């Protein structure tokens, strides 16, 4: 058992950040989801992926099936991770707020990343960043000075708030299509 310690001289946050992505399948019948977890330096740590059929029929209202499918994917992906990230990012334009507000209460900082003018929806708080990015905090922004806030700061300074979503997409392509 190692002796627990914290290196006070170390500025680097020690945790991880997660990036959640969804993509429709080419035939439109299903949705693919992936959760990419990386270190604050951008090192890939973990990649989880799965898919789900989107049901249709008279019992499902328009949009309801999709929303529930996304929530179900999210839950399955969260359940499968081997580590707890400091913060989870999703893209606002592909992850409706309902996914988190209706079905799940996620207990780490959860942020939908959108363009500058994205409406937060619900009661979430919005943090506008200089480079045309808005951080839409689902459960409120992380505590100032806390590990999550530090993580966001570091990722922003390294321009790693949006870029990992592109990597996640590449990972999905590799995982689903190879």
């Amino acid at each position: 058992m190692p002796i627990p310690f914290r290196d006070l001289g170390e500025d680097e946050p020690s945790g991880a950040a997660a990036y959640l992505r969804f993509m429709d399948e080419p035939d439109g019948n299903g949705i693919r989801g992936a959760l990419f977890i990386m270190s604050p330096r951008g090192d890939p740590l973990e990649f989880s992926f799965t898919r789900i059929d989107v049901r249709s029929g008279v019992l499902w209202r328009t949009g309801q099936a999709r929303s529930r499918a996304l929530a179900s994917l999210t839950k399955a992906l969260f359940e499968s991770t081997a580590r707890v990230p400091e913060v989870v990012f999703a893209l606002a334009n592909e992850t409706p707020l309902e996914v988190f507000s209706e079905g799940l209460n996620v207990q780490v900082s959860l942020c939908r990343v959108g363009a500058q003018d994205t409406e937060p929806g619900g009661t979430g708080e919005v943090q506008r960043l200089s480079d045309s990015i808005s951080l839409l905090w689902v459960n409120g922004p992380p505590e100032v000075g806390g590990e999550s806030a530090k993580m966001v700061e570091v990722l922003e300074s390294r321009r790693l708030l949006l870029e990992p979503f592109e990597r996640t997409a590449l990972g999905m392509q590799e995982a689903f299509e190879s």
Partner: protein
Amino acid sequence: MKFLLPWRNKSNAFKHHPRISRWRQAKAEPVQRIPLPQSGPFKPTNLDYAQSLPAPVDSLPLYPGIIPDPVTSIVLTGTSDAPSKATSVVSGNEVRSSPSNGQSRKPREPSVDTLPERLRRVLAPPLDCLLPGPDSVLEWPGELIPFQLDGVKLLLDSETLLLADDMGLGKTLQVIVALRVLFIRGDIGSALVVAPASILDQWRQELQKWAPDLRAMVIRGNPADRAWQWAAQVHVAIVGYETLRSDYTESPYSPLGKKTWDVLVADEAQRIKNPNPTSRAVKGIKRVRSWALTGTPLENNEEELASIVEFVDHHEGLPPNTYSPGLTLRERHRELQLRRKKAEVLQDLPPKLTTKLKIPLLPKQQRSYERAERDGIVHLRELGADVRVQHVLELIARLKQICNSEPETGESSKFEDIRSRIETLANQGNRALVFSQYTSAGFGVAAMSEVLREFDPLTFTGDHTMEERRDIIRRFRTDDRHKALIVSLRAGGVGLNLQEASYVFHLDRWWNPAVERQAEDRSHRYGQDVPVQVFKYSCIGTIEERIDRILEQKQELFDELVDDVSIDLAKSLSADQLFGLFGLETPAGRGRR
């Protein structure tokens, strides 16, 4: 079952998802041993890598009718093989870093192309995040200039490359940055750098500076030491050409015979220009990537280039490529070479101003020289049909030594001129490098040092141990009381960075302009901020003037072949030229050298 990413189902209808499968791995290496499912990532069939969790009896799906496929979750720890921090020094000056967490971080062995491996590659941080620059997630001690970044990117993409940038443009730096990025991305697990003995420590220091997270070790010492050094788990092993030649055997059981290096770097690759045991040893090393570094891929003739191209154009597992002078070689050379000239890429580099000083011998020197030349020619004639090129070379050496200094009195016009110039430039706060091919106390480095003693000179020759050489360079770089560093051309002509000096003197001339240029570029290189003045001496009416003409021709050859990659090799140094220096004809059957 535990939920590692904490969440709570608001409906609290169930605690566990019934169809989640897992693939958990604690380390990267086991990933490579675990087969991927044959039927696609969603239906794991092998319980070694995936395990279907039993559905709890009391669980209900959150949304009946919508259940995702089993999740495949892959732990990607391969990229952490290049450690992010290193805190301690181990075992004297050899292993320079060790993991801060006390665990052994073994360089990764190349792995098979599994899904986790492919994912790790596509999920690796983009290059722009890793390379030196404002957006880099890595700590770099400085920035690269654009042409250097281009070189790094090409190295990252190339299994075979002859990096032939002009001396002083940072070839070593480009390679180190590329190595670090490759290690961090997990693309390589081992690298071997072969370099002249005089610059092994410079490689280690530069690695320490630019890639502090890599473990580097210089392989040297007695055979017993070297045996464990070869077996040590390091990222980068650094070895001298001579040591490599000693240790290399083709036996598959030898340390060098059984290992395949991910990268093999041949620095100052002109050392493998000839088909000798050293060259064969370097070419015999098993490797995936072959990078050759030299500012002078051609020193004398096209065969030398062929040898270097053979090293670079290597594909492990395939029969070796062999080249001979001709169009094929030149075309392959053009494909494999990246060469940038200072004038093209370093507009800001101060100019190098070369002055050829033709000075008369002093009276006693003149008499001594004339007598030696006269006697030497008589001796050559007396040898008749037995005369060899070697006899001519011996005579040339004797005459050059007299041009440096008269053997009995020590009289020397060159010494006087250099002393006078250094006195002036030292008063202006400048410092100088003096190169000689001789180390002798009569006419070489030691004699020059004695003449310049009032300027507190340092000497750097092959007689010094590696430890002493490091100390000499450190003292010269840090203590400006030493106004001159007098260097043996063989020991210090390559690899050293000595931008502290802005004046370079060639006490005597080497046969090869490329070697002279390398020596000058110890000072005239990236980081130099004042013009570099080069003085080349030759004594009027002596063999040195005649040699100078040959050197000019050879410079043209270098420019044609290496810079323009076209060649007319009619100008190589021949026996005719050598004998012609003394007005003699080449004896029948002696041919070209």
